[in-house]
């Protein structure tokens, strides 16, 4: 393992320190060193928008804190939910009198810690509503959608929720809009190589040379099948098929597309994938209104990529166009 670290147990501390130094014009730290707060938060008249999750997915989650996006982000250990206290501190820091919406991914630890944080906030008289992202198609069948994990679709949920909150909308309006955003998202991941938690020191799963794992999760959760590595065109076709077969969108629907690397895949390969992703989506009669390609939501140094497709309506399209000021511009 060759990595730029000091102490494997201090990876998150050191990451946050560097992040805050680099982006002091956008974010600040509060009293809790595990909560990143947008510089101007709390903003009077605005619902607070909070997320949180394990580290190792940078730029998610911290890179999306900033103007018109997330007010505060609770930071967990690598691949491990933030504490209830960090979620609670993020909620408190974001509250400007109109309540706070917590937009997070469907993982057991996050569910428990957000639940406890919400109870703590209720004692302070802060209204909190939550939306749980479940866009990962391969993590459970359609009839058990509530069991699916949240992955890169969370970025669209944050963008839309943050933009809605910036309009001065009520807590319930922000919740409903963020819920609509994630309901309209479907994602798929394909893994070509594993990742290693520095404190563990070796990969926690294997992908044999010459094979790929279709449907892999953001922490290396096994996918639905392992098969011989195919050409980028064939992989892209599979990804589009899995996502859109689940999505079942009427012809003519406008969509937003996000292709994210998982950490160790070069950007040029994401464009190679997108070349076919775009033509496959078009071939199904869908109209791509907006596209993002890059390392938006990673899994340490995993080799692989995810595809997220969000179905748009006029409301979502307008909200996606709202300008943000985060370290990751969307």
């Amino acid at each position: 393992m060759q990595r730029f670290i000091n102490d494997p147990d201090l990876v998150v501390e050191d990451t946050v320190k560097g992040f805050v130094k680099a982006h002091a014009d956008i974010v600040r730290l509060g009293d809790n060193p595990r909560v990143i707060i947008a510089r101007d938060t709390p903003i009077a008249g605005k619902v607070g928008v909070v997320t949180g999750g394990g580290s190792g997915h940078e730029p998610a989650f911290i890179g999306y804190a900033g103007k018109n996006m997330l007010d505060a982000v609770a930071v967990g250990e690598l691949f491990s939910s933030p504490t209830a206290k960090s979620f609670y501190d993020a909620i408190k820091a974001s509250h400007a009198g109109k309540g706070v919406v917590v937009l997070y991914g469907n993982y057991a630890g996050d569910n428990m810690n957000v639940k406890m944080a919400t109870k703590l906030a209720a004692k302070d008289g802060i209204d909190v509503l939550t939306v749980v992202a479940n866009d990962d198609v391969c993590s459970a069948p359609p009839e058990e959608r509530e069991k699916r994990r949240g992955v890169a679709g969370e970025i669209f949920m944050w963008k839309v929720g943050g933009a809605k909150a910036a309009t001065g909308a009520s807590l319930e309006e922000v919740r409903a809009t963020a819920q609509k955003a994630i309901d309209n998202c479907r994602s798929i991941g394909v893994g070509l190589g594993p990742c290693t938690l520095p404190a563990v020191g070796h990969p926690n799963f294997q992908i044999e040379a010459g094979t790929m794992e279709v449907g892999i999760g953001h922490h290396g959760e096994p996918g639905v099948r392992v098969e011989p590595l195919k050409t980028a065109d064939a992989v892209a076709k599979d990804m589009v098929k899995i996502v859109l077969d689940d999505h079942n969108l009427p012809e003519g629907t406008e969509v937003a597309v996000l292709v994210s690397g998982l950490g160790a895949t070069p950007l040029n390969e994401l464009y190679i994938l997108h070349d076919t992703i775009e033509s496959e989506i078009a071939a199904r009669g869908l109209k791509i209104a907006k596209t993002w390609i890059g390392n938006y939501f990673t899994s340490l140094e995993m080799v692989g990529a995810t595809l997220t497709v969000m179905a748009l309506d006029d409301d979502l399209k307008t909200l996606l166009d709202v300008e943000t000021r985060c370290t990751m511009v969307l």
Partner: protein
Amino acid sequence: MQTFDNAASGAIVLAMAERIIENRAYLSEIDGKIGDGDHGVNMAKGFGMAADRLRDANVSLAQSMDTLGTLLMSEIGGSMGPLYGVMFTEFAEVLEGAETIDAARYSKMLHAGLAGIQAIGSAKVGDKTLLDTLVPAIDAFDAALAQGKSFSDALGLLVAAAEAGRDSTINLVAKIGRASRLGDRSLGVLDAGATSCAIILKELSVGASGHLKATG
């Protein structure tokens, strides 16, 4: 009747922390087979922080458990931070104020910890979680007392049931948490939470056993 002294038994939590730290790599290894391999790392971090605070503090078992539970909840996230955090703070609440701990209070303590876990999580026995260790352990302890066995014998049966419960997770399909996404592929592997729970219950019960005195 057998009891043990609350004030003099704080070191049990230190011994427990040592076992967890010793098993750091092992717990991460089993977690890595079906989870993400950080269970040992996070557990060792939380228990290690508690041990650092408790080492020269010379406090009671109740206070030691409260320190540990509060630390796990405020410093260690994931699933294990809140679950074990709640368990130890609930344990502590039952022991708080008791000069000596008898079998009935020990049972009450275990039940309070279980109730705390069930209030925040949604797992059931058979879902391949720490409950597969904790629930049969409590049942075995209560059954032994109902049969008129001594506190010390009941503790021994608790440990045996905890370890059998831990081993039962090898043949279970995970229904909750990260491993649940694997379906049948989670078969054949111990659950990391069930394994750490067996370590905790063993240290706690062996420690209690070692402090037992015959009274009135």
